[in-house]
């Protein structure tokens, strides 16, 4: 999902005026990315839901301060990520990211041989484990950019850093991952 198209601006304006349908459209359009962003930070579904919900509450409350014409998603994600970070400290359990079960793997051209599929799967798991093993700041940057397909600016909003910092974190992470998985 690329950054929001300009046609979202009338919806934001309507929401700002108190139009509940417009508010609902905004929630439906962004709840998945909000929830997943929060989940990458909390690694706990209940905390992520809580953070995403509270993020929307706070974002809507502050809609009056939202700069007209600017993109909604990074602004929302900034708020959601803050909520998520506040919940990390409070909760103990953290889920590891997991891959889908084998036979649900990507539909591709011809079905690969079972051996090849097993190898490919092992490689994917190793790569995901390597991402999970990155230092926190790098892991989140990589996850936002590649797993959520956030732009550099959106990732910067989530991390609360400048876009240039995202670039350097991702670059450091890639160097590290290359060493890990190509060993």
């Amino acid at each position, binding site marked *: 999902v690329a950054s929001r198209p300009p046609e979202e601006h009338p919806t934001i304006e309507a*929401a*700002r*005026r*108190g*139009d*509940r349908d417009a*508010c*609902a459209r905004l*929630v439906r359009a962004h*709840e*998945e990315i*909000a*929830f*997943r962003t929060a*989940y990458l930070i909390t690694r706990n*579904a209940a905390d*992520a*839901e*809580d953070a*995403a*919900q*509270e993020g*929307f*509450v*706070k974002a*809507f*409350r*502050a*809609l*009056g*301060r*939202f*700069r*007209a014409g600017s993109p909604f998603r990074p602004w929302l994600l900034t708020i959601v990520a803050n909520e998520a970070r*506040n919940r990390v400290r409070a909760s103990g359990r953290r889920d590891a*990211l*997991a*891959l*889908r079960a084998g036979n649900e*793997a*990507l539909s591709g051209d011809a079905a690969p041989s079972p051996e090849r599929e097993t190898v490919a799967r092992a*490689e*994917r798991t190793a*790569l*995901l484990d390597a*991402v999970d093993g990155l230092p926190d700041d790098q892991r989140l940057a*990589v996850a936002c950019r*590649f*797993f*959520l*397909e956030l732009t550099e600016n959106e990732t910067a909003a989530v991390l609360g850093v400048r876009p240039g910092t995202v670039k350097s974190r991702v670059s450091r992470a*890639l160097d590290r*991952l*290359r060493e890990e*998985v190509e060993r």
Partner: protein
Amino acid sequence: VTELETRLAGLRDEIVFPETPSLEVPAPAASRRRSRRRSLGLALAVVVAVSTAVLAASPGARSALRDLLGIGGVTAIRVDALPEPGAPPGYLPGRPVSLPVAQEAVTFRIRVPAAGPAPRAVLLDERPSGGAVSFVWSSEPTAIQLTQFEGTENVRFAEKLLGGGTRVERFRLDGREAVWIEGAPHVVRFLDRSGTLHESESRVAGNVLLWRDGEVTLRLEGRLTRDEAVGLARAIR
């Protein structure tokens, strides 16, 4: 794009995220309803509209919301730390005009004090929806000032940020909704009709009485006790 980046992007469709829950749709700033679960935590910034003062809040949230309220176009918000004000105490937005000019420019009937000295200045601020008019009785920053504007839950005029030492009391002033804010100074910030906050005009405020008279919200500020403020408010019709 390197091979590694392609492989990373390829993981996206295979990662199992928990199912995205269907989130509640919060009301926008004006008429709000609390989300389920948990209190708001420490950094509270809650907007509550008087007309929707019955809060459909979870039990946990109710205690956090109790002393936060709004009246007409003004919302009172409890915060951890007050922001730095951008304007000096006593600052009021608007340009000096005569009362007839002000009346011509705003959408509501300007309420005037029935007795007492005439205001020293009338300030007209045309940025808020419907306009806003302030009366000032002296040039001192702590002088009494009265501001009125057309304020409903959908038209926000100002935000008041309250720290811990500021008390808020809601009551009825001759049957009209009223709020008395006193104690530690708070910060007031003004919004224009697009809802944009003008931080540079934020300033520290002292004791304030807010009340509604029909479609108009009135705000009386100055070095006043609650009884004095109420007495003055009664004479403004």
